[in-house]
């Protein structure tokens, strides 16, 4: 959109179509010719990987829905029917189940990339916000999907999470209970609950796809950020998306697919819970209720707060705070490459997120609870204190004037290194040819 269209209709039909519905022009301009900064690294490949994940989940999901029965007395059995009788059912179901984990892994890396390189800053605030909306939809979708096998973990996860709404009872007495009964469609989690979870689980991915289109639209107005965080200033600093980034994304996707396939074929249940192979039993709660790994940091935050209501608020706040990140960061510099102080805080934040993930799976007492509280404190402090303050007090390092300058200085350093022998500590460089 930002660049001039190079599309020239070849045939009479293309011309005819172009005057009425210029889809071919749109595809060519946005996904073939689109000028993309030439210095994007592999962290930028997760966008394409995430589109692959969404399509894979939707395709396998639609197929599973052909065999799945959303009924509390038949759901578990229908999953076993898929695993045992349906042609390739085991492959399709394991791909869908592992796919949810792969989807979140890629999404989190994509988000950390955005944070590190300041991809949320002007003029990309809407792009970032749409990304957070997608994350929220993903959370809702995966939670509902996890409930569908109607195993013990499914059932109790639904029970525990829907009961969060009952915390509103402490705001207006009776309100929370009313909401929970409305969500359940009864006085406990049961068949009406399962049916609506299935219906919404089928609906939400299409909404995700819609927001993804907006997300890409919002990306293509300003164009990609890049590792320097400096805007593209001349045309030589960009290259057409195809073939350069299609092939790079393709390679990254193939590597991602290897990890994905390794889980599907060799450890399909590694990321799941053994308890979910026990049919739901409303009379027995499993000893350890643990959410899926991708929810563990949020779960840790929930449990770190002693008050039920504030725990719930903190858990949702942990995601809501992401919406205002573009306005919390006070520095005009995007990339953390040139922000040494915030870089340290950023890595501490990454470590905190991983640690909260670990703590979310641990019992909430003693040292674990204390650590989770410290982690929760830092999680919010990073956004609410560090981002606004550090931008005002830190001294940025010397920035290159442009992407070209950055590439040139790298080239000079490389030449110097070659002339002066390999720099100490550098790994054996594979010489070109």
């Amino acid at each position, binding site marked *: 959109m930002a660049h001039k269209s190079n599309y020239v209709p070849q045939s009479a039909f293309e011309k005819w179509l172009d005057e009425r519905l210029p889809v071919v022009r749109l595809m060519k301009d946005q996904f073939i010719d689109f000028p993309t900064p030439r210095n994007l690294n592999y962290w930028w490949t997760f966008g394409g990987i995430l589109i692959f994940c969404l399509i894979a989940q939707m*395709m*396998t999901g639609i*197929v599973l829905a*052909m*065999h799945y029965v959303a009924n509390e007395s038949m759901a578990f059995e229908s999953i076993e*029917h898929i695993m*045992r*009788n*349906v*042609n*390739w*059912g085991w*492959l*399709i179901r394991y791909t869908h189940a592992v796919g949810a984990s792969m989807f979140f892994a890629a999404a989190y890396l994509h988000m950390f990339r955005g944070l590190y390189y300041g991809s949320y800053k002007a003029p990309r605030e809407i792009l970032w916000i749409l990304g957070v909306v997608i994350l929220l939809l993903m959370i809702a979708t995966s939670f509902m999907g996890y409930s569908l096998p109607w195993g013990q973990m499914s059932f109790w996860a639904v029970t525990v999470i829907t009961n969060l709404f009952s915390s509103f009872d402490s705001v207006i007495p009776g309100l929370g209970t009313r909401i929970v009964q409305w969500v359940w469609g009864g006085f406990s989690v049961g068949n009406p609950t399962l049916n609506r979870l299935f219906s919404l689980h089928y609906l939400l991915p299409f909404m995700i796809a819609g927001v993804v289109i907006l997300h890409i639209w919002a990306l293509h107005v300003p164009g990609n950020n890049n590792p320097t965080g400096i805007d593209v200033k001349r045309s030589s600093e960009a290259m057409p998306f195809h*073939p350069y980034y299609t*092939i790079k994304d*393709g390679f990254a996707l*193939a590597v991602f697919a290897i990890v994905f396939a390794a889980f599907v074929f060799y450890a399909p249940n590694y990321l799941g819970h053994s308890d979910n192979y026990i049919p739901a039993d409303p009379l027995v709660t499993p000893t350890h209720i643990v959410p899926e790994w991708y929810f563990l940091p949020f779960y840790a935050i929930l449990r770190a707060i002693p008050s039920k209501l504030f725990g719930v608020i903190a858990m949702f706040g942990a995601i809501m705070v992401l919406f205002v990140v573009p306005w919390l960061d006070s520095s005009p510099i995007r990339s953390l490459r040139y922000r040494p102080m915030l870089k340290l805080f950023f890595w501490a934040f990454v470590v905190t997120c991983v640690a909260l993930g670990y703590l979310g799976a641990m019992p909430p007492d003693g040292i674990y609870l204390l650590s989770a509280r410290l982690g929760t404190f830092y999680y919010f402090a990073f956004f609410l204190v560090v981002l606004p303050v550090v931008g005002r007090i830190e001294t940025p390092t010397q920035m290159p004037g442009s992407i070209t300058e950055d590439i040139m200085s790298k080239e000079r350093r490389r030449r110097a290194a070659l002339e002066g022998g390999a720099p100490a500590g550098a790994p054996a460089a594979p*010489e*070109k*040819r």
Partner: protein
Amino acid sequence: MANSNSTVDAVDDTGRRDFITVAAGAFAAIGLGPLVWPMLDQMNPDASALALGSVEIDLAPIDVGQAITIMWRGKPIFIRHRAEEEIQAADVTQISALPDRFARNLNLAEDAPAVDRNRAGEGHENWLVIIGICTHLGCIPRGQRVGDTKGEFGGWFCPCHGSHYDTAGRIRRGPAPRNMEVPPYKFLTDTRIKIG
């Protein structure tokens, strides 16, 4: 290092790049077939449907002239205890009078002619066992119950598009292209059959 003779390299590069790129693209595309196949094959009958076995039916309670309908693999099976005149009527019909000249009997060869003894079992001519589905568009013909219209040939009549079947379940008039099929079955005793 390679910068000094970049022209030579460029020529080389182009040739090899094209080959490698095409090879990579082609190889990636090959993977689409196996990727799509499970998505399609999952709609085929699954292992539990294929395993659905046989049914056994006791014929003793069925009087002459009566018919019963039972379910086999989700399809209606017509079993009619034919009266002598019904057998006669079927037997005297000339092959040349039949729109479909093949027996369509899954117990016999594909090219067996549609004579009556190829429709009902040898020695059990009074029992006609057929899959009760009109070969036109899959409706279930009338003629099983007392009072049903049996069509012009005393067999069955399909109400959807007016196909007439005779007392051997053979198409005689109307849009249906083939005789109603005879399922695989065998007599266990004189009054007991096993279908499938």
